[in-house]
């Protein structure tokens, strides 16, 4: 049988039979609409007038001067409507669901950014929306929970397992299996069974396409290095994808090392994971020697996931992209650094990319360009960072 939806050996469709038909249906619908002029025109219009694309390309002058190496540019996905890159994918999927005649959308969320983006578009399209979120994440990201409810979504807390992102995905998959005929599962990252990793990447690749054109206009050349944070890996795939054929461009993913990759409290999948099959895909996962999925830890709810998208596993295996691990402390320092240096408060997820850039930029020459994907803004994280630093702002 021909293997579809594979990146080398990674990817596939490892889902229960109950949802397999829906996965095939989605695959057919996506094949049909991905090149459909009307669908694409409508999506482009939404990107422009609802998400406010293209996002800006910002020259980080002070950071460049301070680090004394490469010229640093920042792709401002934090300036999108709803405050992160997640809107790109949610718009694409919910629009597709509308074309497929589905009335109910479910989603999982970690930091809440994908949940907020999905709830936003469901409000716009008058669709029913239910978001699954780990109970622990609901506490860490209470503001986003309220935001989703404000947008008319139902937020369902998940208490099973570690009560974080992976458990929210488990529960969303169970909901999907139960309500399969009416429900569209809007997955938030480049993960899950085919076609999700490909489809989500396609909805996010506009980041890299814009960035390439913007840099060509500003600098007349390609960047030398592109850095993005990686949980499941959607913002990273989004900015990497258009640069993959450009072999001179180094691609770097920053994953969450939590309290350190030599502790048992991290989410550094590429650094410490093994090949496995989970959540619909063959990829790399943090797991024990019998294949039980490991509990993970990161200050960032959005990177707190024990796996990674299959295309990243492939980019890593083939050596096309490098992955580095950034600790909570390094991420928090980068959060503070970017706030003070450039006056931009990054999402704590994106701060992992900033932290990696702080290490890489000084090793590069001034005539080289380093591009950071700033995937989201940090308003949602301010309270948690204050708590991390022992500052009481709760009043």
């Amino acid at each position, binding site marked *: 049988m021909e293997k579809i939806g594979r990146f080398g050996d990674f990817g596939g469709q490892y*889902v*229960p039979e109950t949802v397999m*038909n829906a996965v095939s249906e989605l695959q057919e619908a996506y094949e049909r609409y991905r090149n459909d002029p009307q669908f694409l025109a409508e999506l482009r219009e939404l990107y422009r007038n609802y998400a406010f694309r293209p996002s800006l390309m910002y020259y980080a002058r002070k950071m460049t001067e301070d680090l004394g190496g490469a010229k640093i540019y920042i792709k401002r996905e934090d300036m999108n409507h709803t405050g992160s890159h997640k809107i790109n994918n949610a718009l694409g999927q919910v629009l597709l669901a509308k074309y497929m005649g589905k009335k109910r959308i479910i989603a999982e969320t970690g930091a809440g950014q994908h949940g907020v983006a999905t709830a936003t578009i469901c409000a716009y399209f008058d669709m029913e929306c239910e978001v699954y979120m780990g109970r622990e994440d609901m506490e860490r990201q209470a503001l986003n929970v309220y935001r989703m409810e404000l947008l008319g979504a139902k937020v369902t807390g998940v208490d099973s*397992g570690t009560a974080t992102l992976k458990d929210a995905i488990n529960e969303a998959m*169970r909901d999907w*299996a139960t309500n399969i005929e009416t429900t569209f599962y809007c997955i938030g990252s480049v993960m899950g069974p085919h076609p999700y990793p490909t489809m989500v990447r396609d909805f996010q690749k506009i980041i890299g396409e814009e960035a390439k054109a913007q840099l060509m206009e500003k600098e007349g050349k390609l960047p030398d290095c592109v850095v993005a944070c990686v949980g499941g890996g959607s913002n990273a795939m989004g900015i990497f994808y258009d640069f993959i054929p450009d072999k001179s461009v180094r691609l770097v993913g920053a994953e969450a090392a939590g309290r350190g990759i030599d502790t048992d409290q991290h989410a550094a999948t590429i650094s410490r994971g093994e090949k*496995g*099959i989970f959540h619909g895909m063959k990829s790399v996962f943090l797991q024990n020697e*019998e*294949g039980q999925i490991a509990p993970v830890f990161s200050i960032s709810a959005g990177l707190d996931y024990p796996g990674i998208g299959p295309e990243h596993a492939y980019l890593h295996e083939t050596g096309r992209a490098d992955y580095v691990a950034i600790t909570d402390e390094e991420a928090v320092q980068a959060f503070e650094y970017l706030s003070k240096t450039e006056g931009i408060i990054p999402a704590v997820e994106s701060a992992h990319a900033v932290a990696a850039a702080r290490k890489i930029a000084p090793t590069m020459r001034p005539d080289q360009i380093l591009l950071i994907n700033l995937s989201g803004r940090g308003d949602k994280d301010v309270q948690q960072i204050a708590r991390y630093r022992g500052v009481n702002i709760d009043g």
Partner: protein
Amino acid sequence: MANRLDTKFEELKQTGKKALVTYIVAGDGGYALTEEAILAMEQAGVDIIEIGVPFSDPIAEGTIIQQASQRALQGGTTLKGVFEMVERLRNKTDMPLLLMLYANSIYRTGTDKFFDRCRETGIDGVIVPDLPFEEHDEFKEASERNGVYNISLVTPTSHGRIAKIAAAAKGFLYCVSSTGVTGMRDTFSTNFEEFFGEIKRSARIPCFVGFGIRSGAAAKTMGSYCDGVIVGSAVVSRVGEFGDKAVPEITAFCQELRQGLDS
């Protein structure tokens, strides 16, 4: 050696009986309790047992089996330990034993090593809930080489895929009664006449129905559509409720199922 499932199917055909298949989570309450329960179920008239290998993230399971899996893992259950339990059971019973487990448990163990171990310990088949027809090649070679059936599932949402799945299935065909996850149900919305009509047009092997069956009466009704029934959560819930004292409860329940099926 012939697969014990085939021997059992032959025996059921001779006696004209429907198959009673039950499921239990290995190590829930300790291996000794699982072993005792399996042997007691055989005595109570169960034909085939599915031994659930607990997984950290059982996406196809409802609350009852999720919680049992968590109890079993917290109690230290491992796949290695389950195989050792099967070896002990094989000194006492020749009934068909299957493992129900998630794809990652097999893959991470090493596919060849896993199916070798199945053959060595006396496992007759595996049911992998997150391995659809499209990915069956993943374990095909290793399972066939070791004479272990990799059981296929069809569901009411399989629609146009039922024919190709049923035609290619080996051992028995696991017919899922309804959409959703495992767990006991009061009612079913599936049109069983239509569902099994479609299945039987293509299947050349016995067809068993599972998901949601909780009583002898339900076993009788559901069994009338096919060759046997599979009961899981209703057994597992008794382990959860009665703990050390679950075996008599499970025995009585299996007797009820048997009587329902035979009546």
